[in-house]
């Protein structure tokens, strides 16, 4: 089996004596897109800088193609490309900007020209080649930045919140284009984002960094569906997180008592008595309270009172009090169909599949009736 493209082993990064990142073990596999998400200040950018060999960890090793990088940082850096939030183009023409990195890496002139033309065209900015880089729009600058990175034909592409500074439509367009190119080239990619929808869109795997620790790494769908702990859970958007006590495990179903209710989730080994019930709002269906026959095969049915309705464009987030806080995400259409108002009694249903159970650490905030 080939070694992972990039690895961190036992890495600790300190700033002014304070430990800001600690990664015992992290692999970036060849050809994959690894998304790194986390709250602000969690250490995502630091992680990226260590991977980019721009920051030397106080402790630990970075491995490239399985070999230690120490002493070869510059040459390995020249096999990767980094794209930052701000394109930071130089005061010269667009074409010269794209050529700069190649020039520093010793790419011969003809090759530079070819690649510049190709990648500027690929990102639809070929017409700006001779324009001064100071005189193009933000979106165009980001395209040039992309062209510059890809023109280097790197083995690894690193992106630090590359489109965060752009407006929504531009961001989405560029995201699509990037996804397209990544799909074509199969380039090993690590990209940092604070937008989990980007992670979902682009990432094969996702790493969640909170408070300087990598809390969870795994295939995106898995991490989102089964967050390892509370911090990850709220980060991936599982908005219902409540404490409960495991009462039974039978026939592949684990039952958990939450307040007066018993909630059924999929059985899992090794769960202690104190657990957290994690539920994504998208998995919660709402219906009129007098509907005794739900269409779905949802195992869990609860009644509650609507405490808050938040309109989110074509969706609505509905917060309920069922004895514990429950959040549902429904379409605006459904909202209107059900004619929901705050204070109303409502029924909520969700499958056992959607219930994710994780062990509860001490001092968990959401304790609804013990």
């Amino acid at each position, binding site marked *: 089996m080939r070694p992972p493209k990039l690895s961190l082993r036992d890495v600790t990064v300190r700033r002014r004596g304070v430990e800001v990142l600690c990664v015992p073990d992290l692999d970036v596999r060849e050809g994959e897109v690894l998304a790194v998400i986390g709250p602000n200040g969690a250490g995502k950018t630091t992680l990226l800088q260590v991977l980019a060999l721009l920051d030397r960890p106080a402790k630990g090793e970075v491995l490239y193609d399985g070999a230690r990088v120490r002493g070869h940082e510059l040459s390995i*850096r020249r096999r990767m490309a980094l794209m930052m939030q701000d394109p930071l183009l130089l*005061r010269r023409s667009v074409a010269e900007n794209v050529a700069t990195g190649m020039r520093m890496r010793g790419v011969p002139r003809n090759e530079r020209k070819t690649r510049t033309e190709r990648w500027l065209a690929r990102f639809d900015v070929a017409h700006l080649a001779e324009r001064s880089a100071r005189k193009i729009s933000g979106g165009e600058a980001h395209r040039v930045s992309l062209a510059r990175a890809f023109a*280097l034909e790197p083995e690894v592409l690193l992106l630090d919140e590359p489109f965060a500074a752009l407006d929504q439509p531009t961001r989405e367009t560029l995201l699509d284009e990037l996804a397209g190119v990544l799909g074509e080239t199969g380039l090993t990619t690590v990209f940092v984002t604070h937008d989990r929808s980007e992670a979902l869109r682009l990432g094969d795997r996702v790493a969640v960094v909170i408070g300087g620790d990598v809390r969870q790494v795994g295939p995106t769908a898995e991490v989102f569906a089964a967050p390892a702990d509370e911090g990850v859970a709220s980060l991936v958007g599982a908005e219902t997180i409540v404490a409960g006590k495991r009462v039974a495990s039978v026939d592949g179903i684990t039952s958990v008592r939450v307040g007066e209710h018993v909630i059924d989730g999929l059985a899992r080994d090794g769960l202690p008595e104190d657990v957290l019930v994690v539920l994504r709002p998208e998995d919660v269906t709402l219906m009129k309270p007098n509907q005794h026959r739900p269409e779905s095969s949802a195992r869990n049915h609860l009644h509650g009172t609507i405490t808050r309705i938040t309109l989110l464009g074509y969706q609505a987030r509905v917060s309920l009090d069922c004895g514990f806080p429950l959040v549902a995400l429904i379409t605006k259409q459904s909202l209107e169909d059900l004619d929901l108002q705050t204070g109303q009694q409502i029924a909520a249903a969700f499958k056992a599949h959607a219930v994710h159970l994780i062990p509860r650490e001490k001092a968990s905030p959401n304790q609804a009736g013990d």
Partner: protein
Amino acid sequence: MDLIWSGLREAIHILRTGDNSVWSITLRSLLVSGSAVLISLVVGILGGAVLAFKDFRGRSILLSFVNTGMGLPPVAVGLIVAVILWRSGPLGQFKLIYTPAAMVVAQTIIAAPIVTGFTAAALRHVDPRLRTQLYALGASRPQMLWIVLWETKLPLMAAVMAGFGGAISEVGASMMVGGNLAGDTRVLTTAVMLEVSRGDFAVAMALSIILLVLIFAVNAVLTAVQQQERM
């Protein structure tokens, strides 16, 4: 007023008749101050880069020294350098006193803090993320420095102009370490002093005008380079 006019006429006369000694004095001014500025540029860029980019314990103290150095009284510098270079001084055996080299030394000491201070300030204004991006593109440290310097061309040229101005206009240090020797260490400023003390005001004025024209010409060239929008 009439002195200024006669000075102007004298200046034109000198330039037309091509008085050898005046040409050589002018050339010497240019070479001595030019050398001083070029050396200051090397010192200034390296020193400025260190002060701007490296964080070390004595940094702010060093920065204060540089800023103080910008206002060093040239005559004091001249005296100190002279005392060191005199035969009776610690470096007397190098026989540098009363040579153009000694003048370059003195003028460099005067110009270097100016260039260093300006350069450090200019470099500190550079976005630190740009340096990161350049390293990420694969730049070695010298490559990074070169590109960053090119990006700060504007303030850098201003630094050179300020340094050159300081060096070529000063007279006290040049007089003391150079000795104003005809054909050897006489430059425009010291020549003006001599002609004034002789009462040759027209010639003194002419030399002053030539000095002004020289400074203007050099600055014009530097400004052109500075403003040349290479994008």
